[in-house]
């Protein structure tokens, strides 16, 4: 049993970064995730593990510091909230193009523009469909609890280094700000410079005699080579789709209807499922853990078992619902429900939407 603590989601993420053996965090304050950098600064991680924490002059600076540190083979992360994450997109595209590992967190707030500081899930498109330019993907992990805010940092670093890819921990203002019990994993030691040089031949760890120079780049003016690079990226993404889909099924065995949700919407929907079951409605919850890769195959299998309707619940005007539609390929009705712009829906609203939009006709 690891150490138990009562923590905010943002604090759990910060503590997990130290424990995951991160070498550096670069960030910039923005509500509702400023606790990440504040916690890290207060914890003096340099004394605990030698981890560096720096408050950059902007989110753009922070992601480029991440780009540099990732190129050096270090475990590095940043975090922000929606407007700040938009600023990071150029860097993310370059990191993906250069095939470097990094973890970053988006504690989503309502948009567009400056929007609001209240929770939202309206950054789904940005997170899963690109965000920056070019044909790239990133692994997107969606924590639904403070526990997962901690666990997914460790998982995120493992995946980031396994596939040399940016990993996004996509939470929202609810998960970031709420306090829950969290079981912290034990300290993972930071790698030494020698270990980095040995484990990561792609990293810029200093040219030694007889080795090739390593240049981190996402550029190739030879289109044939760039196509080859893109094909290589696509093969990598395919492997990720095959191997890294993560989800949780709750009450889905006999379900006639399924609610698909992630993050805090999944927590709310779980309550709605309990309420519906009491009324005799056979409904289950398909909780997404990875948003990319998306569990399309698993949804198709449920279709074959005779699911009559799907309700996508998300705090947006309807983004994830498109992936649900693409996954179930018209096998059954798919509808969207969600409040947005900073409003969090209630379990009662979710249940009503299920009854009216899915069961009703």
């Amino acid at each position: 049993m690891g150490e138990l603590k009562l923590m905010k989601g943002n604090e759990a993420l910060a503590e997990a970064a130290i424990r995951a053996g991160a070498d550096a965090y670069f960030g910039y304050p923005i509500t509702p995730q400023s606790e990440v950098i504040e916690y890290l600064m207060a914890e003096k991680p340099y004394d605990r593990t030698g981890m560096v924490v720096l408050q950059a002059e902007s989110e753009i600076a922070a992601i480029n510091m991440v780009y540099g540190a990732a190129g050096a083979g270090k475990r590095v992360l940043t975090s922000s909230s929606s407007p700040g994450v938009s600023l990071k997109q150029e860097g993310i595209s370059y990191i993906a193009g250069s095939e470097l590992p990094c973890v970053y967190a988006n504690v989503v707030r309502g948009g567009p523009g400056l929007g609001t500081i209240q929770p939202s899930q309206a950054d789904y498109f940005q997170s899963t469909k690109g965000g920056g330019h070019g044909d790239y993907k990133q692994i997107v992990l969606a924590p639904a609890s403070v526990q997962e805010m901690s666990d997914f940092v460790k998982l995120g670093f493992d995946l980031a280094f396994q596939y040399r890819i940016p990993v996004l921990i996509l939470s929202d203002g609810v998960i970031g700000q709420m306090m829950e019990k969290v079981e912290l994993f034990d300290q993972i030691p930071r790698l030494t410079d020698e270990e980095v040089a040995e484990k990561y031949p792609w990293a810029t760890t200093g040219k030694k005699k007889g080795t090739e120079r390593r240049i981190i780049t996402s550029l190739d003016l030879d289109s044939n080579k760039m196509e080859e690079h893109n094909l290589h990226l696509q093969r990598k993404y395919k492997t990720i789709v095959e191997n890294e889909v993560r989800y949780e099924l709750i009450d889905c065995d006999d379900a006639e209807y399924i609610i698909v949700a992630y993050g805090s919407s999944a927590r709310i929907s779980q309550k709605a499922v309990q309420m519906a079951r009491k009324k005799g409605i056979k409904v289950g919850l398909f909780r997404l853990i990875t948003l990319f890769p998306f569990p399309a195959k698993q949804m198709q299998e449920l279709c074959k078992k005779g699911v009559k309707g799907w309700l996508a619940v998300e705090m947006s005007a309807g983004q994830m619902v498109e992936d649900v539609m693409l996954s179930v390929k018209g096998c059954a009705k798919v509808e969207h429900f969600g409040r947005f712009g900073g409003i969090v829906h209630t379990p009662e609203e979710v249940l009503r939407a299920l009854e009216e939009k899915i069961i009703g006709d």
Partner: protein
Amino acid sequence: MENQIIETEIIQLTKEDFSSDQMVKWCPGCGDHAILHSVENVFPNLGIRKEDFVVVSGIGCSSRFPYYMNTYGVHSIHGRAAALATGVKLANPKLSVWMITGDGDCMAIGGNHFIHTIRRNIDINILLFNNKIYGLTKGQYSPTTPKGHKTKTSPQGTYERPFNPGELVIGAQGNFFARVLDTNPKGMTAVFMEAAKHKGTSLVEIMQNCVIFFNKAHELITSRETRDDNQLQIEHGKPLIFGKEKNKGIILKGTRLEVVTIGENGVTEADLLVHDQYEKDPGVHMMIARMMPPEFPVALGVIRSVAAETFEQSMMDSIAYEKEHSSIKTVDEMLNSGGTWTIE
């Protein structure tokens, strides 16, 4: 003629014309309130029609300003107000554009746009509220937080050297730089008037107090007990004198400034540096802008005010020149000018 004005006389506006109906959401005791009042006092006296004012801001506590002015306004993007204000001014040069920004908005995320706006010399007025802290995100250090100061993101004290806005402005070839205190409404009003009249980018640094996250940040310069020895009100054509007894002054010795006491070591008032805000060479202005306690008093007032051609004037002159001298006067002439060929 474009934008024909029907009225020929400008109606005398009052402070009330510029007060908006919005509830002011700054903390009680925040220095921003005093700045707002000063700006409301200045706008009616500039001879500019109310509808020709645009107040542009970025993100931060100060950037709530456009809501509180009864003018056109843009509450824009963090750090981008300078670029946005540039767009407003170039699209319609007759507007009086006021950019409201803070130390974070202007010099952290917005540092790049800020120095380039100054370098271009767009005719906008920038009011920089410098409270040396991030207020809106609740107390993290900013690019002007004194080195070693403890904040939420520097519990052991910051390691970073702070920016001095004056150095940045003059270093970026700025032509107008002034510094005022939020505790001195008269001083603010006078300096804002001068800034408004200056053609080109004007920057006024307002040393503003955040009562919640960095209270008394400027206390040395503002408190009754210490201010006389730590602030110097500069005036064009006057020697640089300060101190409770008005017996201390600044001299230029070699390539540096030095504090002297009048009457000691044979120093007289005639030896003191006389302020010339119109001097084109930025050297002495830079030195005056850089003066900081404990070695020097902080210079308050207009430090630099030099006339130079503005970007939009050059742009409009260039357009006018082309209109006059181009051989092409119509669209047909343009379509038939050069690069034509006949398909046979």
